[in-house]
């Protein structure tokens, strides 16, 4: 049950995918049934009061689920509600309707199990690097003494490659270093889930690449479940197991889930050499360029509970509907 990851990976791998529709699909169903829904966003809606007394829904009836250890990326145009979803998942914001279930329990507010890496790093400027990480550590383990907190914080500062900068204040760090402190702070509380809202969008390409490598390495090593918002298609392709495509708001919907066909041991540098890379990239870019606007109008029968899963490969992307029965059973487990 817990060990859903390798199996999931196995069935999304190109080798099996090519092994004939019937067989492939049957196995696929089995695999899904085995995967526990670690995160399950169920029928959430978010509405804000509109201009003339009415309400504007950012999104309605949104369903999204992720397995333990999975890396999910959300892509969509500005204002479609990505941050809103992430904040609801973090517990920083409440949905107008619906619930979020994590590890079998409906979430109520924020939790130390769900660490957030903020877009604007959100370091406390009056604390040093060590102080910022130590603040998180003491928040989680209140009875630890100073030396223990310091040693623990230091481990994570070393992990993100900031050894030597412990006593600097955030104002003395570069943008990339600040973001690393944010990552160290999030990891130091050993969360079950990492939530990242465009963590690297303010960085230059080089720093972004290094941090992507680091986040990927850390997530793979620690079996972290990660949920990340990005505008960078290549970032999503490199990091994500699943890419969630959202249509334009208001009234945004989760249009499609793209499964990453690239091998797990992909490298950032030779990503574009993989035979499936362009199919995948084109699929996402096509969605962003044209389908994200027209999707709702063209798909009146879109079922938000059974979002299509696409696996772009060498030819046209295969669209596989998620079997309903399985979804319900997993639902029952979650509840």
């Amino acid at each position, binding site marked *: 049950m817990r060990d859903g990851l390798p199996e999931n990976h196995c069935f999304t791998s190109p080798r099996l995918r090519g092994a004939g529709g019937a067989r492939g699909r049957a196995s696929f169903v089995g695999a899904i049934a085995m995967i526990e829904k670690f995160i399950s966003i169920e029928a959430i809606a978010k509405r804000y009061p509109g201009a003339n007394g009415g309400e504007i829904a950012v999104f309605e009836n949104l369903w999204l689920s992720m397995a333990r250890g999975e890396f999910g990326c959300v892509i969509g145009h500005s204002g479609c509600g990505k941050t809103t979803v992430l904040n609801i998942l973090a517990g920083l914001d409440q949905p107008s309707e619906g619930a979020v279930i994590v590890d079998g329990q409906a979430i109520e507010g924020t939790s130390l199990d769900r660490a957030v890496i903020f877009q604007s790093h959100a370091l406390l*400027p009056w604390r040093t690097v060590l102080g910022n990480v130590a603040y998180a550590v003491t928040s989680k383990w209140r009875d630890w003494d100073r030396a223990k907190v310091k040693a623990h914080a230091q481990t994570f500062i070393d992990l993100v490659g900031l050894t030597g900068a412990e006593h600097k204040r955030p*104002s003395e760090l570069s943008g990339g270093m600040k973001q690393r402190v944010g990552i160290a702070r999030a990891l130091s509380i050993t969360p079950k889930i990492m939530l990242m809202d465009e963590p690297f969008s303010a960085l230059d390409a080089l720093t972004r690449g290094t941090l992507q490598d680091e986040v990927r390495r850390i997530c793979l090593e620690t079996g972290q479940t990660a949920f990340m918002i990005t505008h960078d298609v290549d970032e999503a392709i490199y990091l994500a197991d699943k890419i969630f495509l959202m249509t334009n708001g208001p009234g945004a919907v989760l249009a499609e889930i793209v499964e990453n066909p690239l091998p797990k041991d992909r490298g950032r540098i030779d990503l574009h050499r993989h035979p499936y890379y362009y199919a995948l990239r084109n699929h996402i870019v096509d969605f962003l360029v044209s389908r994200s606007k027209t999707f709702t109008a063209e798909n009146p029968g879109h079922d938000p509970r059974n979002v299509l899963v696409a696996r772009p490969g060498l030819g046209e992307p295969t669209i596989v509907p998620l079997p309903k029965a399985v979804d319900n059973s997993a639902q029952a487990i979650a509840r």
Partner: protein
Amino acid sequence: MTSSLRFRAAIVSIALFLAFVGTWHIATRGTGAVASMSPEYAKLMGLTATQGKSAMPGPLDVGSKLWEHLKRPFYDNGPNDKGLGIQLGHSIARVGLGYFLAVIVAIPLGFLIGMSPLINKALDPFIQILKPISPLAWMPLALYTIKDSGLSAIFVIFICSVWPMLLNTAFGVAAVRKEWINVARTLEVGTVRRAFTVILPAAAPTILTGMRISIGIAWLVIVAAEMLVGGTGIGYFVWNEWNNLSITNVIIAILLIGVVGMLLDQILARFARMVTFPE
């Protein structure tokens, strides 16, 4: 570059000071004997009449008198003749006490107002009306209810220094960056710990600005308040010396009021620097 700028500024300052003192000296010096009169009569009339000397004391008079005061700052020859140190001490003590009480009230209350929109809205009308009242307007009411002039002065200081601190604290607390609050929330930090580890440090520069404005106002108001209530203090001293027609002492008092005000401000500025963080 900066040190040379500082050096040049110091030179200009000194030059301006010398020019001012020089002008003052020339404007107030004697013009020689203006009228011949008997020595007894002349002695009676004083230098103003005999030497054409201005009634305004010159810088040398003020300097020598100041030196006298500085030599014995703490003498006490009864209610109307005390050393300047004692008078300033009384004023500073009143300001200190009233200001301290204001800090104790304004900062927690400001926190409450800043954190709770309900309390903010509920207290807003009171604050809006009470804030523009001149602190001295409270004096008769204070004298009537408290029945003690010293305490009334302290009350007036309290009431005048409470508003800038209250408003700045409320503003500083309400304006703490949402993302810092969110950091505390995602770390499941409790309300009290959050107030002390996030909100207080984040709002501290704004709070200190309010405290700095308050101490300035308090020091402005104490002089006026002491002129009204009398007894002791630098304000009373100024008024008393005016009644004695000792302009020299009035000038000295003015100078010292300025110096003490500057020192109080500098102390608060130092505290403000300690809590400011670069972003």
